[in-house]
């Protein structure tokens, strides 16, 4: 797979590969196929592509019927429409103990030009409240492919894959050594006392820029990309948190219901917080509309704002 591939292009290339091996894989789409380049899947497998129109609830329940018949439906729509509007249908399918892969396209805050009807800041919350579900978020072309393969061939539970849309960011596509292991993160940069957990290309990008600012002060920050958002490997987290004093969890979800609270709850239950300080940086209101930089800045998720926030916390200030 080419390095400059966007997450969405990488996804669909891999989906076509997966469909070659898994003949039961079918795709359902609510007229957002163009945004995920799914018509290339349709060209290859016309009978296994179901265009269901802008009818998300019907699409999800139809996927439920297909799953009852032994198929593996891959269901695509924007995260805010799929996980919210059809949430009860997703829940109902889950109660049948079948397996379905839901594609939460356009998850999170960015791109922010479309405004709050389209930005999805609560899909992690909506899906993680359903039993027997795992939520994944790839970072770049490479782990997109690994995560999809995991969901199709290995994972037993229902899967929700959050996909950032937009072109691949340079800093991110050039990252090497991105792996995927279920429940574990990727340590993109190593540090001593400070660790940042975040997810997805836009926030990892900001975290890397933040790290550069701290580097100038000879402070090394550990940055971890989380690709599994609601399931965490205890041993891996224990190891990565060794000697850390400050934990920052950065996300573009609403503050009370995103993955930072899921992670915190996991760390507390497993006695991994100890004397460390835990801070989460997330949205405290509805998402704003604007350019990427405007909105990241507004929501205090830009590198400048992150730098200031982290700096204030490690210096013991309150704001």
């Amino acid at each position, binding site marked *: 797979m080419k390095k400059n591939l966007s997450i969405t292009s990488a996804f669909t290339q891999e989906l076509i590969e997966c469909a070659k091996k898994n003949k039961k894989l*079918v795709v359902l789409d609510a007229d957002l196929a163009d945004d995920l380049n799914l018509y290339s899947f349709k060209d290859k497998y016309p009978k296994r592509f179901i265009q269901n129109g802008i*009818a998300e609830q019907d699409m999800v329940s139809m996927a439920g019927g297909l799953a009852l018949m032994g198929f593996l439906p891959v269901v695509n729509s924007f995260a805010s429409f799929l996980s919210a509007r059809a949430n009860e249908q997703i829940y109902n399918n889950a109660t049948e103990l079948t397996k379905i892969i839901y594609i939460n396209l356009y998850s999170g805050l960015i791109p922010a030009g479309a405004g709050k009807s389209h930005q999805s800041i609560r899909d992690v919350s909506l899906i993680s409240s359903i039993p027997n579900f795992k939520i994944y978020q790839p970072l770049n072309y490479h782990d997109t492919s690994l995560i999809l393969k995991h969901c199709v061939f290995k994972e037993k539970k229902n899967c929700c894959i959050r996909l950032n849309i937009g072109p691949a960011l340079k800093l991110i596509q050039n990252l090497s050594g991105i792996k995927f292991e279920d429940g574990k993160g990727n340590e993109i940069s190593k540090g001593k006392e400070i660790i940042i957990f975040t997810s997805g290309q836009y926030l990892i990008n900001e975290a890397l820029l933040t790290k550069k600012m701290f580097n100038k002060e000879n402070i090394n920050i550990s940055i971890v990309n989380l690709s599994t958002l609601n399931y965490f490997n205890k041993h891996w987290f224990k190891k990565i948190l060794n000697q850390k004093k400050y934990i920052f969890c950065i996300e573009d979800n609403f503050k009370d219901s995103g993955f930072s609270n899921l992670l915190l709850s996991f760390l507390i239950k497993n006695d991994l917080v100890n004397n460390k300080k835990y801070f989460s940086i997330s949205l405290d209101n509805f998402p704003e509309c604007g350019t990427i930089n405007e909105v990241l800045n507004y929501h205090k998720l830009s590198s400048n704002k992150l730098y200031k926030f982290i700096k204030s916390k490690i210096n013991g200030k309150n704001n």
Partner: protein
Amino acid sequence: MYFIGKEKFEVIKKSKKLSQIEKAEIISSFCRLNTLTTIKNAGSGHIGSSMSAMDLFVWVNHFLIKEKKKQIKLGLKRDYFFSSKGHDVPGFYNVLYSLGIIQRSKIFKLRRLNGLDGHPDVRIPGIEANTGSLGMGISKAKGIAFAKKLLKLEGLVIVLTGDGEFQEGQIYETLQTTSSQKINNIIVIIDHNKIQSSRFVKDIININPLKKKIENFGWHVERCNGNSFKDIKNTFSKIIKIKSKPKLIIADTIKGKGISSIEHPLVMKKNKIYNWHSGAPSNQEYEFMSNVLIHDIKRLLKKRQVNINLLKSIFQKKRINQNSIDIH
């Protein structure tokens, strides 16, 4: 309490002198009595809808679907039937009991732990989909029907809905997509008993003109008396031949059918509110209702000259279970 054992259903089913329709009438009357008893025993359950849909349940599962119990072994090739509204499942469980698919040990565990869920769940034999949250069933059936097409498998895909359920938006999504996607191997039946919960559908939100509306979505629609086996049979023979469109039967039924005191025309005339949507009868009401059904069973058996010793072997006493809550 009164309950008719499976062996009695066998006697009726195997009878050589009874026609299909005569058998269906008797089986249905047995299932109505058993449903009343299991709901009474559970302390709650949707009695009105179980009774309105009973004749449809019996016809589809005993006569339209051939050898339903044996078909389970066929896997995905089997004929599929489920109810989308789902709250009529006490009636359906009892039809599954009469087919030997649900065991006697389970049928008295309606709404109990490790028993039979208050709304359908696939972990129970004979249940094809988890339903009860209204509006999802046709879409699910569409997925099943599409899968059958992909796998080149024969077999019926039939889903029953309520009429109040036609207020759900998802229904109109699926009416549109099913015909547009040309998924024609599907039959929907509306149990059109005119009452949703405790009031007339038309007084909540009018769903008419139902037939015209559904036809305009590209469906083939038939209408029949859903409490007349002759009419049900004729309508199915007609509709099953249609291959060019998805199909829907509007089955006019009576909520509470078979138990005069809870049939909706009478109740609505007297009370203005239908108070038998859910919940269980009191002991006194149970005695009255079961006597009505037993009287009807005796009349039917006498008319068809079927000799079964009612007093000694059809009915048995069961302990009444208390402590349940009435939920709509």
